[in-house]
């Protein structure tokens, strides 16, 4: 029972259009799971199935060891990508209403709301109407409403869109804190920077199919191709030295700064054995940088997607 959510061969079609094709995933407990994919890949359909907004045509979803059922709604918090609030309703009333819809009693909802309003320093907004608030302010309220009922599984669809950097940071910290407290989090996005920072696991969905999933660090390891980024401080003629290197190694790109006597280059090795090379280089130059290039999630994303497209 280590997985909060297991999807087995889930498929969904809208008429002739296939939104999800035979998707199987395991989302471990107490981690941040990145659901990645270009727009229109099927992420939102998958999330809506988890939230029981729509139903799969085939396959099975297991939530915390049980087949997904309506009562699980109370244990799931969902912040949709298309999100908003009633414009002419007061903030406090609205938050109470949404919390009660999730099954909290009015008194309990009020207590928790006061805590969160305090925490995010928005206590004085209680009697304001949404139309008086900025978009970022409204997003904070949406965030609170999503997490208020302390769900086991939180689903954020593009959570940072619409936030300014300061508030995005506040929300990011809150998400990390929730994870510390034991919540499992699904994080759907096509923006890779946030994935690197937050996610331990990812799944890549492309054209309705899952094309990659697993622990992010392992995926990265698998996608390494022994490319190293080297910086040398050399005393001799740069061009000549580079020539001798090119004869021995597969140099991908290079740059020589004559004023600083600095030679930077990337090279691809046949394996990740580096000690011999470092020894050789250090005979003739002063190594100030030698690092393996680990592919970013973005690179992996683009590479896999392109590969998949070429396969067809």
């Amino acid at each position, binding site marked *: 029972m280590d997985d909060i959510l297991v999807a087995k061969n889930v498929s969904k079609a809208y008429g002739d259009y296939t939104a999800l094709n035979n998707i199987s995933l395991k989302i471990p407990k107490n981690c941040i799971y990145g659901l990645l994919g270009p727009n229109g890949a099927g992420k939102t359909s998958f999330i809506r199935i988890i939230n029981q907004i729509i139903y799969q045509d085939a396959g099975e979803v297991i939530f915390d060891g049980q087949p997904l059922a309506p009562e699980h*709604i109370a244990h799931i918090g969902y912040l949709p990508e298309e999100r908003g609030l009633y414009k002419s309703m007061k903030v406090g009333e609205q938050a109470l209403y949404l919390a009660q819809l999730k099954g909290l009693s009015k008194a309990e909802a009020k207590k928790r709301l006061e805590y969160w309003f305090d925490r995010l320093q928005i206590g004085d907004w209680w009697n304001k109407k949404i139309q008086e608030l900025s978009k970022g302010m409204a997003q904070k309220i949406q965030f609170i409403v999503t997490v208020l009922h302390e769900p086991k599984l939180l689903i954020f669809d593009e959570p940072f869109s619409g936030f300014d950097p300061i508030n995005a940071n506040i929300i990011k910290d809150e998400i990390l804190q929730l994870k510390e407290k034991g919540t499992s989090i699904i994080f759907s996005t096509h923006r890779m920077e946030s994935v690197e920072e937050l996610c331990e696991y990812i799944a890549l969905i492309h054209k309705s199919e899952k094309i990659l999933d697993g622990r992010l660090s392992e995926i990265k390891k698998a996608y390494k191709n022994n490319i190293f980024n080297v910086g040398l401080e050399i005393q001799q003629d740069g061009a000549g030295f580079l020539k001798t290197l090119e004869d021995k190694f597969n140099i991908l790109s290079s740059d020589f700064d004559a004023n600083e006597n600095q030679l930077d280059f990337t090279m691809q090795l046949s394996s990740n054995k580096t000690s011999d090379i470092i020894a050789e280089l250090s005979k003739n130059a002063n190594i100030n940088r030698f690092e393996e290039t680990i592919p970013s999630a973005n690179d992996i994303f683009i590479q896999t997607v392109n590969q998949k497209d070429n396969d067809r």
Partner: protein
Amino acid sequence: MIDKLRLIIKREYLAKVRNKSFIVMTILSPILIVGMIVLIAFLTDINDNEKRVISVLNQSDFFQNEFTATKNTSYVQFQDLSLDEAKDSTIALGYYGLIHVPSSENLEKTASRAYLFTQDNPNTNVIGSLENIFQRKLRQKRLEGLGVSSKEFSSIEKPFALNLASFDGEKSVKGINEIKAFIGGVFGYAIMMFIIIYGGFVMRSVIEEKTSRIIEVIIASVKPFQLMLGKIIGTSLAGITQFAIWIVSASLLLFISMLVFKIDLSALSNEANLATPGLQGMPQLDSEMMLYAKEIIDIPWTLLIGSFLVYFILGYLIYSSIYAAIGAAVDNETDTQQFIFPIILPLMLAIYVGFFSVFSNPHGPIAVGFSLFPLTSPIVMLMRLPGGIGEGGVPLWQLLLSITFLIITFLGIVSLAAKIYRIGILMYGKRPTYKELFKWLRY
């Protein structure tokens, strides 16, 4: 589940009744309507009280006291004046006109040479009453020629009313069918207005949830069907509140303004009676009055009000769920036009067909057909029902069949609308075509 539905109903209700324009409408409408009635009554009163004076220059021997004053017209006799002098005097005195009856050897000739002189084009009522005077005189004269004395003539002139009775011997009165259909029509009309006003509210409320993008947050907590149902019920409760306030405050206002302005509303209803040919010949006699009262008391009110509730609830649910589906299918209100027309159409048809065919024959084929067809039956059947059930009224099987059709339609339409709603609320972008809506039903 029920708790959530209650929450939604409460929110929808409060959101509606706290809405500023809703409050303004609630307060303003009765004032406007009563104001309008008072104004019309006031104007009618002024109109009725306008007195026209017509001078009569009678040079013949045939007319003496035929020109008697009526409610709005009085006659002044000129004597020993020439026609030109009479004309000048009429203008100088500011009278409405001058009727000139020249001297001739016989009445026929006199009448054919008589003239009405007026400043402007004469009022048709004035012409009509003058023509009546001549006509009556002529008829009397012609009958006298056939040997009918003037005494006998007045007995000929007595109006005649046919006695009416139903087969079981009960006396009935003229125009009662129309009155009954009219009473049913009021109920039917109330249903139509309610559907159009509050169905529109449901639709706008759905659109608001879509455009404010809160919809997905909510349907992650409740089923779309619950939300739709809660919205329809909440809005209708707000509507019933508004209707109740309207009826109470309008009656109060009307009562007060009648006291203050001393307006006699019966003057208004007399006008209305004359305007509706079917209702002409209203009771002059007390015994007839009693018959009317009896007929109206005899209307099966319990049945009528019970059926009203059934037709109201089912009809409103059918139409407002269609409105909700339309709201879900579009992104903004301007896109709703093409979908709204087909809904309004059966409603309008029901009202017009009802007023034309049920009035003339409550149990004719058209009236029966439309009172069975589920999209028009809530209005048309209610117009037929004041005639009672069974013999002389609506056959029981028709009422039951009509309600059965309505229930089947209700179940069908609501489930279709819920499907469109469920898909539509998550669709943004272009306005769907009917073909696409049909495709959504299969998702």
